[in-house]
């Protein structure tokens, strides 16, 4: 249930006119007017929570912002959508380009089966209705990186429509206070990617690399059900996780595999929606929320100062931290949509409608794809909570880092320690070390087996937890030693000899009578001093809880 956890940080504080905070995320109880789902949290659909002013002046009313998203995800396939050239991130310029990609005359598009399956799987994962018949269209515009002068897309009848995407936002300060929101998915369509242009302003020219031209894209259109940057960023994050779990896209924003455009407008609650602007070039997860919040604030400021919002396209300037108008896109674009004359309609089947004797390579069975859908992030999180008794925010954290869940599950398989212990070690210690050195899970010097062995030692009470931390640090240095070897080398084994421990405790009690008196007078913290003394005497090799037990026994007798 719980989707990527969202730590609310008020955007209002960043700007000079700090008057906006996303009220929805500050609300403690159920949002007014919403229907409660009963069991887990409340679901709100198409909810427009009010943005309240931080320090409202007298007579000031509220603003509500409306954010819709268009997300383009590159399909993870070997070859492109309509041609057989390779899909690869880094390659010499124009080396992965076929004659069709370069739009040489006489070439025709041939649809890639894998891309259609990817679109259907994504549609099923987002609870969409899959159109049994979908059509391809041409969207015309002139740009140097679009050699054909048009992009083949699905405007009239896309492959999937009317779905929903659920995500969780935290309301209030405690991470456990989370609420599920849904945003409607308007449609999912297949379309071509364009090439890449490198602008050489010095020589007043643009260099074109068509390696990217023709790669299959999934365009996911989210309805304007979101109300601030943080909600949009969380929804995008959840979509990223879903696409990665399905394997339909690697959805890596840094490599340009996931691109987001936002449509933003503001209005007073109860009044009709305001003029919207489109913000393009949001290619970084980090700046997505910031850019959207900036634009919301800019529109509010503009309207409050008596200005008006133009229906324009803006771009986010990362260096300046603000949105700027894109000069190339002045005026409304006329795309002259027309049916793609070279492609018949795309027909999909289910097990009930499969034509008999059809070539399995040439037909796509939606029901078979539905059966083969992997576990979705939402389901995985719920399963982890159920199976291992962890908190929802822990399951979120496990899914949020690439490879962390697999690491966790490998450790669980090999160790006898309790799942809660494993969870704590993986999320706190292991992840902490990774973050400190900015490493990915795949680059970790500690293997799941090593951690499993360490946790076994801890579980058997062969070492204390502080000793375990020491061993972990040693393991991190990656000198090839096993935990058992490190324990032996550094003499970190817990004192197993109970008699020796009893003796040490007795002698400590005798050596420090005033502390004993202090304790008997009723100061409970004096026992800690005694424990500390005994530990020093054992050179840190005794388990504090065992010491405490022995001392208490000896004191009471």
């Amino acid at each position, binding site marked *: 249930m719980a989707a990527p956890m969202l730590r609310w940080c008020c955007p209002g504080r960043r700007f000079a006119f700090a008057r906006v905070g996303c009220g929805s995320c500050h609300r403690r109880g159920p949002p007014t007017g919403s229907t409660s789902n009963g069991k887990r949290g409340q679901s709100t659909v198409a909810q427009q929570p009010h943005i309240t002013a931080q320090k409202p002046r007298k007579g000031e009313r509220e603003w509500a912002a409306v954010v819709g998203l268009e997300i383009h995800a590159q399909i993870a396939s070997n070859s492109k959508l309509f041609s057989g050239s390779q899909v690869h991130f880094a390659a010499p310029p124009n080396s992965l380009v076929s004659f069709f990609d370069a739009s040489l005359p006489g070439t025709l598009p041939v649809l890639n089966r894998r891309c259609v399956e990817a679109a259907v799987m994504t549609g099923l994962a987002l609870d969409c209705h899959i159109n049994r018949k979908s059509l391809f269209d041409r969207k015309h515009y002139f740009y*140097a990186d679009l050699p054909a*002068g048009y992009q083949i897309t699905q405007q009239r009848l896309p492959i999937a429509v009317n779905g929903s995407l659920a995500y969780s936002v935290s309301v209030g300060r405690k991470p456990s206070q989370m609420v599920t929101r849904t945003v409607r998915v308007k449609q999912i369509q297949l379309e071509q990617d364009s090439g890449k242009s490198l602008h050489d302003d010095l020589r007043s020219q643009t260099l074109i690399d068509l390696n990217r031209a023709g790669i299959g894209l999934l365009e996911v259109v989210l309805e304007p059900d979101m109300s601030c940057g943080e909600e949009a960023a969380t929804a995008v994050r959840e979509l990223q996780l879903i696409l990665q779990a399905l394997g339909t896209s690697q959805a890596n924003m840094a490599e340009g595999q996931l691109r987001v455009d936002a449509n933003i407008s503001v209005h007073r609650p109860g009044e009709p929606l305001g003029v919207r602007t489109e913000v393009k070039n949001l290619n970084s997860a980090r700046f997505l929320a910031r850019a959207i919040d900036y634009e919301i604030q800019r529109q509010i400021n503009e309207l409050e100062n008596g200005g008006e919002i133009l229906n324009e396209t803006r771009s986010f300037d990362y260096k300046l931290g603000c949105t700027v108008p894109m000069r190339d896109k002045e005026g409304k674009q006329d795309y002259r949509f027309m049916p793609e004359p070279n492609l018949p309609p795309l027909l999909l089947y289910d097990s009930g409608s499969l034509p008999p004797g059809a070539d399995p390579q040439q037909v796509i069975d939606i029901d078979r794809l539905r059966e083969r859908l992997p576990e979705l992030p939402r389901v995985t999180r719920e399963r982890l909570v159920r199976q291992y008794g962890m908190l929802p925010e822990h399951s979120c954290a496990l899914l949020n880092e690439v490879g962390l869940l697999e690491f966790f599950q490998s450790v669980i398989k090999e160790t006898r320690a309790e799942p809660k212990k494993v969870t704590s070690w993986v999320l706190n210690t292991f992840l902490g070390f990774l973050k400190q050195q900015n490493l990915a899970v795949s680059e970790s010097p500690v293997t799941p087996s090593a951690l499993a062995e360490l946790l076994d030692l801890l579980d058997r009470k062969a070492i204390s937890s502080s000793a375990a931390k020491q061993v972990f640090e040693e393991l991190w240095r990656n000198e090839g030693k096993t935990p058992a070897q490190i324990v032996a080398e550094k003499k970190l084994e817990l004192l197993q000899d109970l008699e020796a421990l009893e003796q040490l405790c007795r002698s400590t009690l005798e050596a420090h009578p005033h502390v004993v008196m202090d304790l008997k007078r009723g100061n409970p913290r004096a026992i800690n001093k005694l424990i500390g003394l005994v530990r020093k005497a054992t050179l840190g090799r005794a388990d504090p809880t065992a010491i405490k037990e022995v001392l208490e026994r000896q004191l009471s007798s």
Partner: protein
Amino acid sequence: MSVQASPTLFMASASAAVAALSDVITFKRVARLGEDALRRPTGSEMWARAVHLCLRAAARGRRGFTSKADPQGSGRVTGELIQHLERLSLVDFGSQEAVARLEKAIAFADRLRAVNTDGVEPMESVLEDRCLYLRSDNVVEGNCAEELLQNSHRVVEEYFVAPPGNISWSKLDEKQPFPHH
């Protein structure tokens, strides 16, 4: 800057111009009318028809598209429309002759309206009854950068070279606005 005129491209631009005026262009299935049946219109006739519709709608204000043959309109293409279509399609309508040819083509294509298409399901494409072939996801093309770059007028280190930003409008803007009839 001259761009090879493409009938389909121009038709698309014209049809969009019409769509902007809230008319709908559909290609009706040509019923079997016997030997004197209209032959399937060619590309130039198709766009001419589209422009014709557009201009009539402009002349008479908005009204719905009917399948009955309408009486001939003014048959004139306005300067404003020409400019709009030129910008969209980058097709150069330099001369009066070209516009006259366009108007004649529009009139010719208008004969389509003689066909009664009441109750006929519109066709989406001539391929709509065919099967869409699905290719398996294998890499079989590419690695021909050298060949492709030979097509380009200017090349810098295996990149195609294009003018900066979007295609330059400067040539179009420099022309005299077309005389309005």
